[in-house]
Structures are given as C-alpha cells and as structure tokens.
C-alpha cells in the first residue's frame, strides 16, 4: 500500500528528525542510544580494577606500564530503544465528524514519530485502542514498519470509549511508549499507570491532541454534545463561552503539570499546528 499524500509529505519533512532517548537505554541490541550497560566501544569512559574473569585483552597495558596498576578500560555502550506508539481511537478523536481532522492529525503524528524512531534504528510498533479491541503491531526494525504503522492506523475510524490505561499497563516491557490521545477518556487511570511506568524506569511521552475548534469554538450560540456521552448537552452561548475557555485552558494546564510531575514528557499538539512541527517538538522534548 502506498502512503497517502499527507503521510508522504510528512515523512519528507521529518526525514532528518531524530528521537533520542531521554535516559540511558536498557542493554540490548546495538543502537543509537547510550546504554545503561558499559561496553567495549571506542568511547573510553573509565578504568576499573582488574577482577578475576576479565578478559586480558581489556587490560590497559599502558596504564600498567606507567603505574603498576592492573585495570581494564570501560566505555559506553549504545543500544536500541524499542518504542510503541499507543494511539487513542475513541469517539472523541473523530472530530469534527465530517472531516475527522483530529484523528488525521493524530495519525500523522504517530507516523512521524514512528519514522523518527525507525530512523534511529529503534524497533517501533503501534497499539491502537479501538472500540472493538486493541490493534497491536509489535515493535520491529524492518524497513517497511513505518508503512505498516500508517496502514494500521488508516484502517480505523475512531468510535466508542476504549480504555487506554490497561493497554499502557500491558506495555510495561517496552522501554519507550508515546501515548497519543486527547485525554478525554480514562485520563486519571492513564496518568497513574504512566507514573508507575516512569517509576520503573521506562520513558513515557504524552502527546496531547487538541483540535483548534476545541480550543476556540465558534462564537455562534450552539448546543454541544460529547460524542462519548451524547445525553450530556450543553449550550455554548455568549455567557458560557468565556467560562468554557477558562475551564478548558485550566484543565490543560493541570494535566500538563500532572504528567510532568509524574516524570513523563508532555507535549500539547494540534490547534492549527503543522504535523511535522508537532513531531519535532515531541522528538526534541521541547514540550
């Protein structure tokens, strides 16, 4: 399957974007990220006293000649950082209902991040929280994985109210997870799982998707309903609009603070922003 025009343009725009690990990667396959384990690369880090069992070829003979100390040379190792993109496909992502711009934007960000991770040699996969069950693509490094991610996301239309927290909890073995969501579902549970993951040493990124119309609804009076709770209808008028803007902004500030306090990397995207810019901000950790 060929990528769409938007995906193709995005990949072209982010072809130089790298997504470095924020912390040392767990020891594993050789990759682009500094590993927690010390290895035998050319980057000298430190000397360590020789212990029985160390390989003789790792002994620094020059140091022995100079100082009569027997020590081995240690250097940083580099490893890959398997990454999974956890994408929210609930009904609130299908906004506006006629264009699905919010979902399309989330898909583009996911594809862009997948490309950035893949370019660093990291295995990348995707888990989609869909109404009829999660769709999983395990992390891979093969060349067509980005296309696979795009195809997996393109096949879905957001609906229902799938929970993200259980899916995040199921990704406890993945060193890096990027959650792409609007946080209008099980936000509290998701934060709790994210905090636990961070405490366990994993890297958690939250990409908070906000559509421009959510941040600044039309001024004309209208009655709005939540697509995930259609019985709850609220009238947005001149009197209530100011309160809505204040409440929504305050909530976004609160969630950003909460996620950062939990140790995650929080980035709000959308609201008229280009997808490649959003990808760069997430990858760079600019927030």
């Amino acid at each position: 399957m060929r990528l769409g025009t938007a995906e193709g343009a995005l990949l072209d725009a982010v072809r130089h974007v790298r997504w470095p690990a924020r912390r040392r990667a767990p020891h594993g396959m050789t990759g682009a990220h500094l590993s927690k384990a010390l290895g035998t690369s050319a980057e000298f880090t430190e000397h360590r006293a020789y212990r029985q069992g160390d390989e003789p070829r790792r002994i620094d003979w020059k140091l022995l000649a100079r100082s009569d100390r027997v020590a081995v040379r240690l250097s940083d190792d580099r490893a890959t950082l398997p990454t999974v993109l956890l994408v929210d496909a609930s009904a609130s992502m299908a906004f506006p209902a006629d264009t699905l711009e919010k979902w399309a934007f989330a898909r583009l960000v996911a594809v862009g991040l997948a490309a950035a991770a893949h370019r660093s040699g990291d295995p990348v996969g995707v888990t989609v929280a869909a109404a009829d069950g999660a769709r999983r693509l395990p992390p891979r490094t093969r060349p067509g994985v980005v296309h696979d991610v795009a195809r997996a996301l393109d096949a879905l239309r957001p609906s229902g109210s799938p929970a993200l927290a259980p899916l995040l909890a199921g990704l406890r073995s993945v060193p890096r997870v990027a959650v792409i969501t609007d946080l209008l579902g099980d936000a509290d549970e998701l934060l709790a799982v994210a905090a636990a993951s961070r405490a366990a040493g994993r890297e958690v990124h939250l990409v908070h998707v906000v559509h421009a119309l959510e941040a600044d609804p039309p001024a004309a009076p209208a009655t709005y309903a939540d697509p995930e709770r259609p019985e709850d209808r609220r009238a947005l008028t001149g009197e209530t609009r100011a309160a809505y803007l204040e409440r929504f902004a305050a909530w976004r500030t609160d969630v950003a603070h909460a996620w950062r306090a939990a140790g995650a990397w929080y980035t709000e995207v959308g609201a008229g922003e280009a997808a490649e810019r959003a990808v760069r901000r997430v990858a760079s950790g600019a927030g």
Partner: protein
Amino acid sequence: MSFAAPAYLAAAALAAALVVALHLLVRRRPPSALLPTARFIPDVPASATALAARPADVPLLLLRVLVLLLVGAALAGPRLTPRPRGTARVVAVDVSRGASRAAALTAAAPHVAGAAAVIAFDSAARAVPADSLAALASAPPTMSRGSLSAALVRALRAASRLRESADSVQLVLVTPALAEEADAATMEVRALWPGRVDLVRTPPAGSMAGADSVLVEWADSAASPDWRRRARADVPGALRAGDAVLVAPLARAWAHVPRDSSRVAARWTDGEPAAVERSVPGGCVRELGFALPTAGDVALRPDAERVLARLRTAPCAGRADPTPMSDAAVQALAGAGRLARASDFPAAARRGSPLAPWLLGGALLLALAELPLRRARRRTSANAPASVERAA
C-alpha cells in the same frame, strides 16, 4: 345579530390577536453539534426567544382564540334581531272619561289590525294585546282624565323596541283631543317623536252634557266598600267640607279605604277623610263617613246645616271638560311630513341577552378542553426531541 356592547367584542378580538402573537413567539434552543470537550461548558439552560413564521401549537391557539371570542361575544350582549323592514304601526286609543269609548274602539279597529303595538290610555297608558282591545268596550267606564303625555311616552317606548324590526314607525292616535288631556309636558314629549302622528279624532263622551246629580250615602248604610268600621270609634272634634266647618263631638266610627277613583269631599281635623266623592255617569256619589247624633241639637245647628248643604248640593268634581284642543295645538300634535324613522328612536334598554349564557357556557367548556390538550401536547413533546419550544 346585534350587540348591546360591541366594545367587549372588540376587546376580545384584540385579546385574541395578542394570543396569536404570543403563539408566534417561540423559545429556541441553539443548533446542536458535537464537541468532545463539551463537558467544560457550564451546564446552564440556554434558549433564545425568536419570532416564528408560523404559530406554534395551532390547535391550542384556535382553542384559546375561540374562548376569548366567545367570552367577548357573551359580554357584548348579542341578540338575534330580524332584518328590519317595512313600517311598524303603534296605535294609541283614548279610553278616558272624555272619549266615547265605543266610537274610539270603532275608529281604532282598522288601525289595530296588523299593528305592532296597541296602547290604551286614560290618565295612564298601558300596552294591551290587539285582540283584547275590543273587550274594553264592556269594561266599566273610567272617570280618569286622559293624558296625551302618558300615551306619547308609552308610544315612544314601543317605538324603541321596534327600531330593529322596522324601517319606520307610524303612530296612530285615536282621541277626541280635549284640552284637559294636554298638560305642560305634552308638546315636549310630542317633540321626541321624530315624525308625523296620524291623529284620528273621535267624538267626546256623550254623558258630558246636562246637570250633575249628587247622591249622598252614609257609611252607616254599609253600601260602599270604601268604608270599614273602626275597631274603636273616636271623637276628632270637628270636620271641614270646603269652607264649611262643623265643631261637634261627632263619633268617627268609619275609616276610609283609599281608592284612586275617589276624591276627598270633607276632612276631619286630623286630616283623615270624613267624606269622599266618586264620579258616576250623570253625576257623582258622596259618601259620608260620619253620622249626626240623634240626641241633642247638633243636627239643628247652622254649621251642621252648612256642612251638610255643601256635601249635598256642591257640583261634582272630575267632570270632564268638553273643550277641545285648539286647532293649532291639534296641528302641532299631529305634525306633518314623513313617518318617524325607526333608527331615530333610541335603543330600548336591554335587560339581558338570551344568547350570553350559551356563549359563556361554550367558552367554559373550551377552556376546560385546554387542559387535556396541553397534557397530550406535553406527552408528545416528551417522546420526541424538540429543538423549538413555545414561548407562551
């Protein structure tokens, strides 16, 4: 149909128009759409009042308009009146002491046939059924003086009642037109009749010629029902007949029963009648409510003779004056020109409209019908989501 107070109907129409206007006001909810972040909108009711092109809830609107119009029509005093057409005739027949009754009834007969109202008058006027006028011929003669004023007032009232059923009103006045039948108000009242009066002059009563005969009756004879015996006789002390006075301890054993046809001929000192006179054909009868004592000399005294002479020989009062009205007065009474237009008479005072209770009852029933109608409408709107609600 006519209305006594059409202003009520106009007010009802105005109120109905207001109700229609209120039904054009609708309270709309703003258009509905999806917004994932709707939970951040304050949950307050919001609606706006707007003018609709079509009235909301047409059955309820019609019900309310009908109720208002029925109430207004009921208060307006509707009457079903026949279409006015033709000439209505009012016949006033003089049956007073000055008119020859037989001649009057004969002269009135051709006019009474087909008349809308027949009035018989002497000192007072009264409406009589046309078919009962002939029965007046056998009624006892009256000694009451005729009153043209009373006849004309009665005729005016009859014409007011006929104004909605006729184009014009003809007044036929059957009377000898004696001078004594006109009073100071007659021409004033005549001026209220807006047209000519067809005057049919009849000969005066024949018994008006010759000398009066006086018949004296004593109340002691109990021949007259005009006197009743007192429970206890008293002694007023004196009585007076004209300028003759008798001071004597005469016993007052009889009390006079007042009658319209009798006149007081003598009075006791306390004002009670001591003798009364009533007219009869050919003269009058004087009834004395006292008796002269058989003992003593009261009967022989000159003052007693004078009183008795007066009571015995004085001319009878209430005798009709045969002098006819002057030609000018007759001409003024008859008038000239066209008949009176019915619309020129004031509308008769309406006592009540027979239709009003029915109209009010209908309005009440419709008002009660509004309750189940609104309940049904409420059930319908609860079952189906509505974005427009009636403001009223």
